């Protein structure tokens, strides 16, 4: 699976037109779309969530922007930032893994390739994991496994929906089999989450491949993808070498996965937050629908109990919590704050 190399499928990035060639992009004031080549005022591009205003191409964004785009301002509570990578195999290829880690950390300001935390999406409390491709290609090692597992366990305990924005080249080879086993570990946590009838939705962004595709990226109750994201198990180059034939252009795109039944919906980035919030709300069915017969065995707390839990944890300011959770939605006071999906 880690045979994957996304380079092979990098978008045909050659600019088709050079609209404003005299402008300098080095100061960051202007950003060039890597699909159509058009230069856009960076401020405007950011206002459009880094989606090209000319061609709708979704430029790559990283964890800080993703969190900012999805989570209500002031509600993000990061978790387990102090879980940090080490070098259990004393791995050395052309460079020493330990040094490579340090260099990547100081270059990116990240400690590893996923950030996790709790926060609100349009007032809905959620658990969110965001992978960051800048950090060693979003590769999954022990820290990704541990942070995501803790996130899911926390969400299960607090009966929160889980979203994970995926972006990864696969398992981190420098941690050997420990990396592979993280796939199982995270899947195990998701099994427990699911057994409690709680919602999990991965958001697949460019690129989602290898071990991530063969585990939590494909385990959503529902699976959402960004337009044109590359989603693959085996790398395109590996397949081409095996078959010795040219693959279709749309092979392994989000659209291709929708066609083949593995992704529920493609959601433009500009609609993402709204859609995720909508999903959370839709999965809180009113009690009158008759979901008391939940078979999970665990008591499903009502809104008030959830409210109390949040208070206990204190991660949402009391005022906003009152507004968002208890009072805001007439008719939903008795709603179960849980998901009701067919198993």
């Amino acid at each position, binding site marked *: *699976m880690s045979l994957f190399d996304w380079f092979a499928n990098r978008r045909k990035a050659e600019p088709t037109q050079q609209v404003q060639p005299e402008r300098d992009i080095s100061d960051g004031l202007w950003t060039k779309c890597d699909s159509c080549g058009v230069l856009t005022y960076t401020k405007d591009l950011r206002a459009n969530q880094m989606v090209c205003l000319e061609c709708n191409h979704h430029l790559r964004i990283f964890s800080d922007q993703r969190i900012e785009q999805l989570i209500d301002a002031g509600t993000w509570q990061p978790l387990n930032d102090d879980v940090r990578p080490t070098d259990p195999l004393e791995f050395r290829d052309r460079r020493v893994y330990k040094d490579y880690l340090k260099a990547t950390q100081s270059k990116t300001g990240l400690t590893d390739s996923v950030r996790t935390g709790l926060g609100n999406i349009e007032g809905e409390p959620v658990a969110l994991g965001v992978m960051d491709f800048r950090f060693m290609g979003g590769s999954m090692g022990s820290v990704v496994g541990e942070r995501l597992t803790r996130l899911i366990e926390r969400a299960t305990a607090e009966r929160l929906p889980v979203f994970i924005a995926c972006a990864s080249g696969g398992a981190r080879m420098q941690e050997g089999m*420990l990396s592979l086993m993280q796939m199982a570990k995270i899947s195990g946590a998701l099994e427990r989450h699911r057994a409690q009838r709680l919602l999990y939705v991965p958001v697949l962004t460019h690129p989602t491949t290898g071990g991530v595709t063969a585990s939590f990226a494909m385990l959503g109750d529902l699976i959402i993808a960004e337009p044109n994201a590359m989603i693959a198990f085996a790398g395109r180059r590996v*397949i081409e070498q095996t078959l010795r034939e040219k693959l279709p252009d749309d092979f392994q795109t989000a659209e291709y996965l929708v066609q083949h039944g*593995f992704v529920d919906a493609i959601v433009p980035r500009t609609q993402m937050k709204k859609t995720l919030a909508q999903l959370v709300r839709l999965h809180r069915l009113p009690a009158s629908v008759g979901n008391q017969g939940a078979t999970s065995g665990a008591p499903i707390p009502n809104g008030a109990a959830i409210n109390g839990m949040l208070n206990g944890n204190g991660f949402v300011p009391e005022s906003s919590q009152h507004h968002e959770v208890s009072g805001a939605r007439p008719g939903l006071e008795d709603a179960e704050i849980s998901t009701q999906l067919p198993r």
Partner: protein
Amino acid sequence: MSNSGSLGLLARRYQTIVFALLQRGALRDRKVIFPMTSSPRRPFLLEFEKPLVELQTRINQIEELAEESEVDVTPQLEQLETRYSQLRQEIFTNLSPAQRIQVARHPKRPSTLDYIQTISDEWIELHGDRGGSDDLALIGGIARIGDQSCVMLGHQKGRDTKDNVARNFGMASPGGYRKAMRLMEHANRFNMPIFTFIDTPGAYPGVKGEELGQGEAIAYNLREMFSLEVPIICTVIGEGGSGGALGIGVGDRLMMFEHSVYTVASPEACAAILWKDAGKASQAAEALKITAPDLKRLGILDQILPEPTGGAHTDPLATAETLKNALLSNLEALRQLTTQELRDQRYQKFRSIGVFLES
């Protein structure tokens, strides 16, 4: 070598077993190929076994000489044969990871079907994922050992070129993983333990596999194997290649044969990506920590199953016996647990894997 006599005996014992099974009808519709039935004396010597060839040649020469001349060469022969087994012992106790891969991929290494047919008293292979395919690279069925019914399944490599093509060299397709899951769910429903045998270079990389959701098929198994309420014992009998191996590898116990390997990515691919040089595969094999002792140290592996000197293929029946005993004793221990304990322990087993810092 005195070995030649016992090899013949071995072959005959195999034939007896096959015959017995055929009579019972268990194997009727399947081509049965055992590794030792028709092999020459020392087939498929690996590169690092070459020093043994020389010794063997000298032994043969002396034997011939003795027949012709009626000179008593017993002392010389004994000395050479002792030297031979010493040398073999030396070679096999000091195998590098790259050499272990060669043993793990040995064309005569016992396969999933070899083990299943040897250790079970009854065996019925079952087919199909109920979604339009039956993958020959991942086989399974219901077996009986003593008074214990169980579901056994595993990757199946081919025994010759034609068979290997049909079985994709043990690289399973989505349909294979879905068939495996179907059989495991069956085991769960009828309270049968599950024994899985891992022997694959990896899941099959192909257009069809991507189209049918290779990633989804593996992922689904990873999650659902945590939910099963029967004991699951997984054994790496040959090579465990990445996600394709893990797709049937979530269990209460993970065992590995001494010379088996289990890798996050094939050393060839790893070398190509990290060293930018596929020729550095043996270095990658070393760095990736893929051997059974390494994985035991990392807390991933529960038990190492010893192999005969020279590898499992040199004495498949003894190796199968080792496997059978290990399966049964682990099963006995797991049977003492309640369903809840079993599932909790399985979760904790994987939950605790990983090495990181925390302040």
